[in-house]
């Protein structure tokens, strides 16, 4: 049975209000902006966002009022600096108060590995001596170690280079915390640049990110990670981040950006029509040398 559906359907069915959602697990690459924008369009509320740094995606969701809590190592705009919506939420409760559970990049990974292995917490030597231990109730100390409580997302949303209709997803490049997020989550929603046949995905089972039993939706969404980069498909659109940083500096500017880039755009295909694809498309291909999966 196919798992292919539109992003609107996937968000409608698998990202309810109040959900704990892991996103942006690739740190700066393969950020599922299309999914985030659809969540904003559908007016999701009270979400808990889980991720390492998410580039500017979390800032956008926070600014749009979708988020109750953020469990992350860093929220901002990687190449531009501070996240203005994040600041306003924390400093002025605009548009709504925000609970923050601080992590480091390593500790958020361990929180997801703890959930993946179904243990209450995992120990680590990182964060010793950091005041992050003071603010996050999910971190405790004992026996000279920090114990990082498991974080189990209801859903992990990832963007990948290619997937088949059954949810077998291939991604390449640095993976950040993508694998543990998918394993820890109850469900995984995949958006992909290319929807391919099982002949492609099963030709290389080592590159399949998650067990298909976790994947509930596959959305064919070319450009679904813009403005973040997708190895082999799109470069990073630096200008888009700069534009967002400037506009989001004020509430009015953010709202204008939001209307123009998200609310007034029916879907990703329409959004992509506004992008100068030729400036960011990767055209020089570098195919990997195949592995030989032969058995006879």
């Amino acid at each position, binding site marked *: 049975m196919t798992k292919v559906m539109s992003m609107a359907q996937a968000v409608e069915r698998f990202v309810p209000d109040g959900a704990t959602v892991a996103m942006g697990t*690739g*740190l*700066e*690459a393969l950020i599922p902006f299309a999914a985030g924008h659809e969540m904003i369009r559908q007016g999701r509320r009270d979400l808990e966002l889980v991720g*390492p*740094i998410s*580039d500017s995606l979390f800032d956008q969701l926070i600014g749009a009022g979708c988020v109750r809590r953020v469990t992350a*190592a*860093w*929220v*901002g705009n*990687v*190449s531009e*600096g*501070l*996240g203005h919506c*994040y*600041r306003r*939420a*924390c*400093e002025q409760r605009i548009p709504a108060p925000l609970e*923050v559970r*601080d*992590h*480091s*990049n*390593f*500790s958020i*990974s*361990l929180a997801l*590995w703890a959930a993946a292995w179904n243990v209450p917490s995992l120990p*680590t*030597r*990182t*964060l*010793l*001596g*950091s*005041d*992050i231990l003071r*603010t996050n109730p999910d971190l405790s100390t004992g026996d*000279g*170690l920090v114990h990082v409580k498991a974080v189990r997302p209801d859903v992990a949303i990832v963007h990948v280079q290619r997937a088949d209709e059954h949810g077998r997803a291939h991604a*390449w*490049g*640095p*993976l*950040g*915390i*993508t694998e*543990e997020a998918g394993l820890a989550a109850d469900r995984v929603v995949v958006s992909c640049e290319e929807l391919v046949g099982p002949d492609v995905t099963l030709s290389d089972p080592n590159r399949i990110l998650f067990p298909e039993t976790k994947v509930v939706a596959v959305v064919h969404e070319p450009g679904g990670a813009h403005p*973040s*980069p997708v*190895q*082999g498909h799109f*470069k*990073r659109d*630096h200008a888009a*981040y700069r534009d967002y940083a400037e506009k989001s500096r004020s509430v009015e500017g953010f709202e204008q950006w939001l209307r123009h880039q998200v609310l007034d755009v029916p879907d990703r295909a329409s959004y992509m029509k506004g992008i100068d694809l030729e400036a960011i498309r990767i055209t020089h291909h*570098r195919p990997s040398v195949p592995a030989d999966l032969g058995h006879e």
Partner: protein
Amino acid sequence: MSSYTQQELMVAVASREIRDGDLVFVGMRLPILAYAVARNAHAPTARGLFEVGLMRDQPASAFLGTMGDPPNVTGALWATRMSNAMALMAQGNVDLGFIGGAEVDRFGNLNTSYVGDPRQPSVKLPGSGGGADIAILSRRWVTLMSHERRRLVDRVSFITSPGYGDGTPGWRKRNGLLGGGPVSIITTLGVLRFPEGGGEAYLASFHPGQTVDDVRGNTGWELKVADDVSETSEPTKSELEAIRHFDPDGFWTRG
């Protein structure tokens, strides 16, 4: 007007912290350039480790806006999960890390989380990212920041990435911190260093055009000064060429 920007000088100074053979945990922004410069000059066998999940033995062939940009992946020695990169650091295999700072204190502690009460901060900064991990686990680390009185403070109100804590001897060891701690703070005005074994930062050099008094006047505590304090060596021609090669539009270094 000098023939290089403050940022270019900082990158050159940072690159000199990299020793040949080092495994360098490369942070965002200027450190990406510092690794590129060092690798092309005095540290040809230094490798870069990126928390996103990459290892490289040469700079990317094109400009990087982030460590996750495609040019950083092509030609990588390893594309993996973040937790694997962190594993190397947790084992003490990372010789040097770089962390960007918003606020630093005399004992090298960094705050990139909250100004004011965390429950109602006057400024919410982005957070740790990998900073706390680097500060705690790398063998030695360096921070780069803008030298302003409000940024170089006596004691940070929130330690995101620990340096030498309260400055008492053995603070890191007592608290179980694996790595050696910060070795220098490279600012827009000068270079602060820490004594062997840690403790309080002192001024080791001031950048061309600055004086010791300029630097002290912009520091939020009574900054100690090295007996042999001197002017920071300017970027060499080849350092500048490398910087401008890897940041051709001055995205990070336009000053």
